[in-house]
């Protein structure tokens, strides 16, 4: 990373950090590196899923279904956010958040669809529904984590620094961006630079999977 960050001194002076040679952008990229954001959070969620106990692979009633999902949601949150002392499930709030995730996954009547799957055992049954909730929770936590870093970073920059940062990013990572978006000074990328930063960890994570068997 330090090699990637070596820039001409004059360029560095514009927006470099206070104590190291790393630029502000480099520090941000380090902070939201997938190993620290996506992978770490996903691993915490996986550990939480591993430690949740369900007795059966299918549910008998709607009430049982909701209770399991609420307890699961609360358990994941306690483990991932390291809440101490652990909070108790809050049926109304936790169920509301579960249904939002189920709608994103299964469509407008996601809670009914998920219940049908969990009751019938089809399409992977209850376990598949729990994995869906876990996946959405991991994505939400990672998005919050990355978003908070980017928000702090972006808010700390002046207008000139924002322009310089987007240029620095394009110099370093322009090869990852489709060539048509780089044409004309990469106006679209610069206009939605915040979004580009949000996607950066996912891009790096995908690239990192290349040739992992070697």
């Amino acid at each position: 990373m330090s090699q990637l960050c070596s820039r001409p001194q004059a360029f560095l002076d514009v927006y470099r950090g206070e104590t190291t040679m790393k630029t502000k952008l480099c520090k941000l990229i380090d902070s939201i590196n997938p190993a620290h954001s996506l992978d770490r959070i996903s691993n915490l969620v996986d550990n939480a899923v591993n430690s949740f106990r369900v007795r059966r692979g299918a549910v008998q009633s709607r009430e049982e279904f909701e209770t399991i999902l609420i307890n699961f949601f609360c358990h994941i949150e306690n483990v991932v956010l390291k809440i101490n002392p652990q909070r108790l499930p809050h049926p109304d709030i936790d169920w509301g958040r579960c249904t939002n995730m189920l709608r994103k996954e299964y469509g407008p009547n996601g809670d009914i669809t998920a219940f049908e799957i969990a009751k019938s055992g089809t399409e992977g049954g209850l376990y598949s529904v729990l994995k869906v909730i876990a996946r959405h929770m991991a994505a939400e936590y990672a998005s919050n984590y990355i978003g908070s870093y980017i928000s702090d970073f972006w808010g700390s920059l002046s207008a000139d620094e924002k322009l310089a940062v987007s240029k620095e990013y394009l110099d370093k990572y322009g090869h990852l961006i489709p060539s048509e978006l780089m044409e004309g000074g990469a106006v679209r990328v610069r206009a939605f630079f915040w979004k580009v930063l949000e996607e950066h960890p996912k891009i790096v994570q995908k690239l990192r999977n290349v040739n992992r068997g070697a």
Partner: protein
Amino acid sequence: MASAKILMSELDERTIARMVAIPHDEARISYYLRKNRVTDFNEYTRVLGDYCNHHFSRCISHGGRLSDAQATSWAKEFVEKEYRRRGGDIVTAYNDAHDGTNGGIRAQLDIIAEGLKAEAIERYIRDTFDHHVAPNSWNTKVEIIRQFIDYCGVHLSNSIRRDQPERYAQNYQELIRSYVTALQQTSSIFRRL
């Protein structure tokens, strides 16, 4: 007397779930994984083999166990097959288990569970067919296809000759399987309405 209706009801996805899939899901859920990463390849293969034996013992052999070598080898076959489909191999899988990436070891136990479940479902389907239609009985095959066309013909392609069930008797399994698969897909769509 072979009955297409009974055959189809036994191949219904809810029946398959009740008879086969749910016990497999329960075997997966009941396995306690202490950590989602492994430290070396020996631990990796030991965890895969231990899980494979747990699953096998719980819902296939009901108590009997495979040798460690056989369980490990079987488990690695499932994982490697899935990783090859994604463009990786067993080393990629080990790296994920070691680093906790792409779901870590948990996701690989899911792959083994899904593999064992899929094999069990396939065996159940084959057994159901053989139970209703003896593979060596031409007349039963013709009869089951005749009933199948009577029962489901309205939904089938116009190119299927309803008056000649003999034409399809040799491929009765493929025809009924493809119909059942199509029904499963439409069920999935309906569930999401």
